[in-house]
């Protein structure tokens, strides 16, 4: 009954989405308040049914009901409970159900907390949201239904793949989805604005929190995915420019651009048409990411061609939504009124520059990701566009962007004073120069680029704090006054300073890891000592151990620094006999922001073992940076200005009750 109830709830959600996608538009067209309000109650009800459906699937996985094909194929009664739950979205059908559930969640949130929106705008936004939802409900029900049954259920499920039983892999897809799907809201707002034919500064303020939420989750999701690859794959690599990663990076770049252009729109009523386009592009790239990952195009163009139902369906959704919204844009955008004026050198100008570089960088990633696919379809030639391509195109575009970052917040709106901003950044510039000089002296004869890049990063971080210091008048006014001003500073200002500093911190991590990473690969016997970056690692012994369903060889290393014993590291290699697969469990030793990283290779016949040891200086900064960015985003989200006309609790509560 659980399975069937979940299935029926999904069907009902589709039916509700169909009503939600039509009735409110008619209401807005003929000015009927009640019809427009249908959007809200149906969005909440749709959330309820999507949640029932998803909960049903989770409980089917937990109870190992193998009469459900999805559970039979992707679960096993011996899996630990946590992986039974995370296994729900470890497969295609379940992950698509999670996708629509998150879509319904965002729709429900707009319905519940969108009291500050004009009625017709809210009706339009929710209707557009329901178009997307209907398309994906249909996709799930027709091509990837997770609730199909087997009449004679088998006694055991088929999947117990050890590689997938990892907590990092389990948590980051939902994060990424929250990001991807979150951008559907700004898309819906953009399409709604085009449908209504009116857009102004207030629009930007209404969209901003939703864009921020999506951006925060996407930032964290990407960072987590990268850290997972770093510790789990045993290579110590943290970014591979793999198409799946690029699929998440592209919406992030476009979304970051969107956040910045929305600021211009909110403050100056300018860049309106561009902001709308960015909203559409960001979500289109999210859809493209879903298509790339879900259609099988990446695994093999042949796999796509032999079982095309799913791929073609998603491609169809992609074409309808991207093509449709862009045509609507081409048709209606010229009708939108022009906004405020500004000089090229001004805060607006700086943000335009930011947008220009971010979107161009996004375009290069787009080309690098899709060019091989296009070439293979057209000519049959197979090429791989790897890290060198992206390093050669992406990095040169990011350098000028980083140089410009500290200037932006210091320029005034409308007409800025570049010289004045430069003067105020003198301290930051001097700090950067000192950093470069020190590093140059210290790593004399080494890389020339690395100190420059770190100098740039220091400049960005110091620039972010210069901005704060300038606004609070730190060092100019008495400390007490400065503190008082700091308290009065809008949280969004704090947020952007932290986010910008986060970019600099991540850059330091990236440069240090790639330049001064020391690597030691050799075969070692018990008693052997390896010296890496001043650390002495002695292989004490190797022990065999038996786990629940694997055998494990653990190597124990004693780590010494300057003759002092620091710690013991135990990397291991697990053999899952029944599945004839092995996994490498790397051992990490964190020292400040740096890490020692050991992973094991194959054992040789004479008792030696291949060992890979890395010392990765300041590697953790690569992930602390994005975390700081996300923190900045959250500060900005908590800004009181974003809660203009926020719903009074009593009214929101009534809205919720309505749906039940």
């Amino acid at each position, binding site marked *: 009954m659980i399975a069937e109830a979940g299935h029926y709830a999904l069907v009902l959600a589709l039916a509700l989405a169909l009503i939600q996608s039509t009735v409110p538009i008619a209401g807005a067209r003929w000015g009927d308040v009640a019809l427009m309000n249908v959007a809200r109650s149906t969005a909440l009800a749709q959330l309820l049914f999507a949640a029932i459906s998803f909960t049903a699937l989770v409980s089917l996985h937990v109870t190992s009901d193998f009469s459900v094909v999805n559970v039979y194929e992707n679960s096993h009664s011996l899996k630990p409970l946590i992986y039974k739950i995370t296994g729900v979205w470890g497969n295609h059908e379940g992950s698509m159900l999670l996708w629509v559930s998150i879509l319904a969640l965002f729709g429900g949130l707009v319905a519940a907390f969108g009291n500050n929106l004009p009625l017709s705008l809210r009706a339009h936004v929710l209707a557009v949201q329901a178009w997307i939802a209907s398309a994906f409900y249909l996709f799930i029900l027709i091509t990837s239904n997770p609730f199909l049954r087997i009449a004679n259920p088998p006694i055991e499920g088929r999947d117990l793949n050890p590689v997938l039983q990892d907590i990092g892999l389990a948590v980051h897809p939902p994060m990424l989805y929250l990001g991807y799907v979150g951008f559907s809201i700004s898309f819906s707002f953009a399409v709604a604005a085009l449908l209504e034919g009116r857009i102004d500064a207030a629009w930007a303020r209404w969209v901003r929190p939703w864009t921020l939420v999506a951006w925060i989750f996407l930032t964290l999701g990407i960072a987590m995915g990268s850290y997972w690859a770093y510790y789990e794959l045993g290579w110590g690599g943290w970014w591979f420019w793999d198409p799946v990663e690029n699929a998440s990076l592209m919406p992030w770049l476009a979304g970051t651009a969107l956040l910045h252009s929305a600021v211009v729109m909110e403050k100056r009523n300018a860049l309106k048409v561009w902001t709308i386009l960015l909203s559409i592009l960001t979500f289109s790239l999210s859809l493209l990411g879903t298509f790339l990952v879900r259609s099988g195009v990446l695994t093999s163009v042949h796999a796509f061609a032999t079982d095309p139902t799913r791929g073609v369906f998603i491609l169809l959704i992609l074409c309808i939504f991207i093509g449709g919204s862009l045509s609507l844009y081409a048709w209606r955008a010229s009708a939108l009124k022009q906004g405020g004026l500004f000089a090229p050198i001004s805060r607006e100008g700086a943000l335009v520059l930011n947008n220009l570089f971010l979107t161009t960088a996004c375009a290069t990633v787009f080309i690098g990701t899709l060019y091989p696919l296009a070439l293979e379809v057209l000519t049959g030639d197979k*090429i791989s*566009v790897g890290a060198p391509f992206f390093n050669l195109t992406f990095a040169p*575009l990011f350098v000028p962007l980083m140089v410009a970052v500290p200037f932006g917040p210091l320029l005034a709106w409308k007409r800025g004073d570049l010289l004045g901003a430069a003067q105020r950044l003198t301290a930051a510039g001097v700090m950067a120069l000192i950093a470069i000089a020190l590093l140059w002296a210290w790593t004399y004869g080494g890389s020339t680029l690395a100190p420059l890049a770190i100098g740039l990063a220091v400049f960005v971080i110091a620039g972010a704090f210069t901005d704060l210091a300038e606004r609070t008048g730190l060092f100019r006014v008495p400390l007490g006054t400065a503190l008082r001003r700091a308290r009065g500073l809008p949280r969004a200002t704090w947020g952007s300073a932290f986010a910008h500093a986060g970019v600099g911190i991540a850059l330091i991590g990236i440069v240090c890891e790639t330049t001064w990473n020391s690597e030691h690969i050799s075969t070692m016997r018990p008693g052997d000592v390896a010296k890496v970056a001043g650390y002495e690692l002695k292989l004490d012994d190797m022990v065999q151990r038996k786990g629940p369903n694997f055998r494990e060889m653990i190597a124990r290393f004693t780590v010494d620094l300057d003759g002092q014993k620091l710690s013991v590291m135990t990397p291991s290699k697990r053999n899952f006999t029944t599945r004839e697969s092995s996994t490498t469990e790397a051992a990490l030793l964190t020292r400040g922001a740096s890490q020692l990283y050991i992973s094991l290779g194959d054992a040789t016949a004479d008792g030696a073992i291949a060992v890979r040891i890395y010392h990765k200086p300041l590697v953790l900064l690569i992930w602390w940076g994005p975390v700081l960015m996300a923190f900045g985003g959250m500060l900005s989200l908590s800004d009181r200005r974003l809660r203009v006309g926020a719903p009074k609790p009593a009214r929101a509560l009534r809205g919720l009750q309505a749906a039940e």
Partner: protein
Amino acid sequence: MTRKQRRLTMIGGSLAVLAVAAALVLNAMRDSIVFFSTPSMVAEKHISAGKRFRLGGLVQPGSLQRGDNLAVSFSVADGSATLPVSYKGILPDLFREGQGVVAEGALDASGTFRADTVLAKHDETYMPKDVADALKKQGHWKDDYGKKPSASAAPQPTQGAMR
């Protein structure tokens, strides 16, 4: 500045950035794109020594030899040709004789493929896609390699008839 001049500045700046980006992309495309080959394609095309490419195929069973200090050599075959490969380093977890592999590197003067990377990112059911496609093209694979046989698949005519 008039509105028009401002707009021209803006458009000019955008075009400049786009032009730079296009130049970067084209430049990178020329230098950093690697083609994919199988051993028989290598034999046909006479790829010159030192040119980087990706080699894909099956690891010839019995060809894996481990030397001193993590040096490994093995042969990659695609049914009609084989190519010796040498590599120094730790092979990925899923590297096995008889399984698909993709290696990146270049040929040396003696015709041995010197790999600097052996790709690891495929699991037990997932064949590196380039390898699967290439083998399929040559008719060594009838069914999609990655497809799991369903539990109820009928036994093949060649099966179960012996003993």
